[in-house]
């Protein structure tokens, strides 16, 4: 199952590193990353393959990263976006 991770917040050192190492700790494979920094606002979208990892395990781990990096992180099933925005 694939999921989309979005990270939005004030830019600081190590956001990408912390999110990607959390993914790696959970055996979650990163397929695609799209990141931009607009002034000092950090925005990143990641498409990941969860493999056998339950989505709530990854979500719980990323909640810790959220606090650590002072950003807003969402983890959602890819199908939601596909069904809402594709006919």
């Amino acid at each position, binding site marked *: 199952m694939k999921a989309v991770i979005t990270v939005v917040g004030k830019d600081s050192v190590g956001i990408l590193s912390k999110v990607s190492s959390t993914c790696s700790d959970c055996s979650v494979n990163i397929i695609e990353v799209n990141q931009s920094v607009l002034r000092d606002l950090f925005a990143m979208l990641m498409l990941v393959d969860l493999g056998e990892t339950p989505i709530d395990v990854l979500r719980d781990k990323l909640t810790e990263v959220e606090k650590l990096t002072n950003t807003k992180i969402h*983890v959602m099933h890819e199908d939601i976006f596909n069904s809402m*925005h594709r006919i």
Partner: protein
Amino acid sequence: MLETRDILETINMIDNENLDVRTITMGISLLDCMDEDIDKACVKVYDKICRYAQDLVKTGEDIEKEYGIPIINKRISVSPIGMIAAPCQSRNVVKFAHSLDKAAHELGVNFIGGYSALVQKGFSAGDYAVIDSIPEALSVTERVCSSVNIGSTKAGLNMDAVKMMGKIIRESAEKTADRDCIGAAKLVVFCNAPEDNPFMAGAFHGVGEADCVINVGVSGPGVVRAALKKNGAGKSVDEIADMIKKTAFKITRMGQLVAKEASKRLCVPFGIVDLSLAPTPAVGDSVAYILEEMGLESCGCHGTTAALALLNDAVKKGGVMASSHVGGLSGAFIPVSEDAGMIAAAKRGTLDITKLECMTAVCSVGLDMIVVPGDITAETLSAIIADEAAIGMVNSKTTAVRLIPAIGKKAGEELSFGGLLGTGPVMPVRNGDPSVFINRGGRLPAPLQSLKN
């Protein structure tokens, strides 16, 4: 690849604009639970509901977690108890309500609908007993919801039932006067009741339905309002209608996804998606605010009916392509106490019961969650039901009446139900006594448009 803009739009809808799946409702047929012995029938009812719906709440929560979509309610609707009670020797049919309530508590669902009777053309065995017991059933149980269908375009209006229901609504409020008259808030009187509606309090599992089925109700007035706020300035009404259609499409796709997934996991056939804009008391989640966003100073002012007609139609047109089966009530709800904008408009005095009645001719349901003065007579309640049912009958649409007489209170005061049911200001009703008309009884003939064959 998914586009960044689409992803952020969806997340914003859920985080800031109150987008959610309002309810996953499992419809369960109880036709095989009938028994001459009411105690045996109640055991069968309880067992069947608990067996079929044992995983409903857990599955709903799992989907919620996995997909990151809030699913607010998990509910159950059952066959009209008026039918199930038909063969019972005992007339103490409140026992069924206890069984339903017990099952709802056991399963963790917040409402169970189906303490109902379908009497649009006449009463059959069981119907009288169930209708008569509604006030008691709603006062001694917590989660049971009741509905009575008193008319249809095909059958006309059963005016004996209309007369009876005025009395029943009043009694339901009186019996729960110590709890803000909550009994009446769980009772709906319908004309042209849909048999696959997943929304409470009017949900029941129709006789033509499968043994068990999953129906899903989506919502999202906040999302529609946000779309209009962002892009609606200076646009013509056809452009506004297009914007609403596109938003309704997206909302419904999410509902369809959840419905399919729930149906697959529970191994129960998928019934319908009900694409209704159902407001909640949460700030921003209001149908009245959408109407005001279109350019009305206050919901209830002249122009409200036209704006609501546009909204109701665009929601259906946008949603219908997004789902394989659309049903239930589908459209825009206008429950006063559940909608922050309606409450404000009623308090300001721009929205009154007469305007609401006009609005029900073009919205998806009817006079919903309206608190009326405590000294209202049963005949006046019946007359309001008759007016509303006549609108439904003539226009071949569902209309419903859910009025709450605020026992001991007058216009200007309010009732507070808490949770999704909200807070309602007591709204004055029109003067004049309709009791001679109501006491005539009989059957109001079906209109010519019923003869379509």
